């Protein structure tokens, strides 16, 4: 038989209060600590994101966005997605994954900007030509079909590709699947053909020889960085990509 252990003496009221306050301080610190973890993804920029048209500079954009997703709801091509918790303070903030579904300005005037209740997508913007999301760049010239002087026949991104695009000649108001719109081109000019901005990209001859079919895409300063060229490029991975703008006028 062992001696039964005496019960601990009941806590005095002020001891109880002291423990409660210590617990509260510990828990409060833990919650604030958890909220501060959001700094890492933001400051280390470990998930660079292409923001929707009209987005303010990144830090201001994260501050001004109220994380409601109204921009997501109005986009006719469903290009906009909201960030997850691995983006820290980018949680609930919209971005576009151009390769999967680019913004092709199907909405004509920037609907996402009009939908934004805070001006995180700046309300001063009302023409697609004034958008500055990024700048297109020929990242893999060796993969570019035009540079090889080759044509393109078939579905730009294969039969399984789910992305949609507005083909004005098919239906002015309704975007259709890229897979439902096969091409037959003697020389691949998809990035130029489908670019929604006038004079943003053109094909230039690679040599002075007029018999030489080879062309190279040349991006001009009119490029707004919508990512349509990245989306439509049939090379895998895309030969042309959009560099995300960090500050106005300083892409790449």
């Amino acid at each position, binding site marked *: 038989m062992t001696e039964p252990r005496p019960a601990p003496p009941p806590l005095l009221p002020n001891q109880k209060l002291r423990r409660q306050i210590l617990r509260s301080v510990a828990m409060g610190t833990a919650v604030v600590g958890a909220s501060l973890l959001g700094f890492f993804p933001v400051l280390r920029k470990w998930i660079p994101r292409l923001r929707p048209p009209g987005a303010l500079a990144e830090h201001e954009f994260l501050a001004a966005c109220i994380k*409601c997703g109204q921009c997501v709801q109005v986009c006719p091509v469903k290009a906009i997605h909201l960030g997850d918790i691995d983006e820290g303070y980018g*949680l609930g903030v919209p971005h576009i994954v151009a390769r999967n579904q680019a913004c092709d300005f199907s909405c004509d005037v920037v609907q996402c900007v009009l939908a934004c209740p805070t001006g995180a997508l700046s309300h001063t913007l009302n023409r697609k030509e004034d958008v500055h999301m990024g700048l297109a760049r020929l990242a893999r010239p060796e993969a570019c079909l035009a540079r090889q002087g080759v044509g393109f026949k078939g579905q730009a991104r294969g039969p399984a590709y789910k992305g949609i695009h507005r083909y004005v000649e098919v239906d002015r108001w309704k975007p259709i699947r890229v897979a439902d719109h096969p091409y037959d081109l003697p020389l691949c000019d998809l990035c130029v053909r489908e670019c929604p901005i006038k004079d943003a990209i053109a094909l230039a001859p690679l040599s002075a020889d007029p018999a030489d079919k080879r062309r190279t895409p040349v991006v001009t300063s009119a490029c707004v960085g919508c990512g349509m060229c990245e989306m439509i490029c049939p090379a895998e991975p895309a030969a042309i990509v959009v560099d995300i703008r960090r500050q106005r006028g300083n892409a790449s």
Partner: protein
Amino acid sequence: MKLLDSLRIMLGAAPVRPTAYTEAAAAIHEAKRRVKGAERARAIKATHSETRKNTWRNRRWAVLIAVNLLFVVSYRFDVQLVEGALTASRVIGFHFADLNSALQVMLAFKHVLVNLVIGTGTVLFLWWLFGGRSFCSWVCPYHLLAELAEKIHLKLAAKRLVVDYPLHRGTRTVLYLVFAALAAISGFTVYESISPTGILSRALIYGPGLALIWVGALLAYEVLFIRRMWCRYICPVGLTYGIVGAVSPVQVTYNLENCLHEGDCRKVCLVPHVLECTKKSYAADVDLPIGADCTRCGLCVDACPTGSLRFRVKGLDKLL
């Protein structure tokens, strides 16, 4: 003075027993004192033999689910009645902005945004009218999940498998200031990255994500350690709406006369400090509105065996 007390208690002060009573209240207290223990116990038992109602809880859950579904359906079927999420939305075209989210944005962005001022104006009016923290219990999706977690916690606690470790209620006030300061200093909407309200609302409308792990962890913690931790001790959204609802016409009111002081209301309440007046000899008057922190969830109204706690719309009874 009454309002100040109610605000003080909401911010974390402990409620105190009144020192002065109105004449009518003093007479009732005295009459109750004369009733002997056995008689009182019989009275309590008799009133409790009736089946327990869940009227207000069911109404509230129906509203909560309907409001959140309206956001989902509106987007999925492109009805455009309610666009956005709980942080900010357009309701048939009118801007609505959650007060706390709007505050975080303005502190971080350091601009007064016209749409947000309009949006917060409508929301301020709406929740002043409906009772401030009624946002919590009638709309917030986390509240519903936390209520279910609380049920599990109480079941486990009854079997002595878990113990509630309550925090000091002042924690929420301190955290409110900390999150406001963090937004202003860092220029990021820091609180939004951990807000279960926003995370759940967006998950419902735009699809689930990793952020739900955080919400799940919070719920698990509430089951195992601290009963209703987030809603009681942490959430700044609740405190914001509490301040809005401090002078709201929609209230739960307490009537001293038939109260048996058995305390069933305080057992079900999210914020039992507002029901301190239901303790024996704690009511300074016969009719009392209960404090600003009340979420108007109606659990106490359902639980009360004597009908001493009721919903009341200030001014409406005079009108009728």
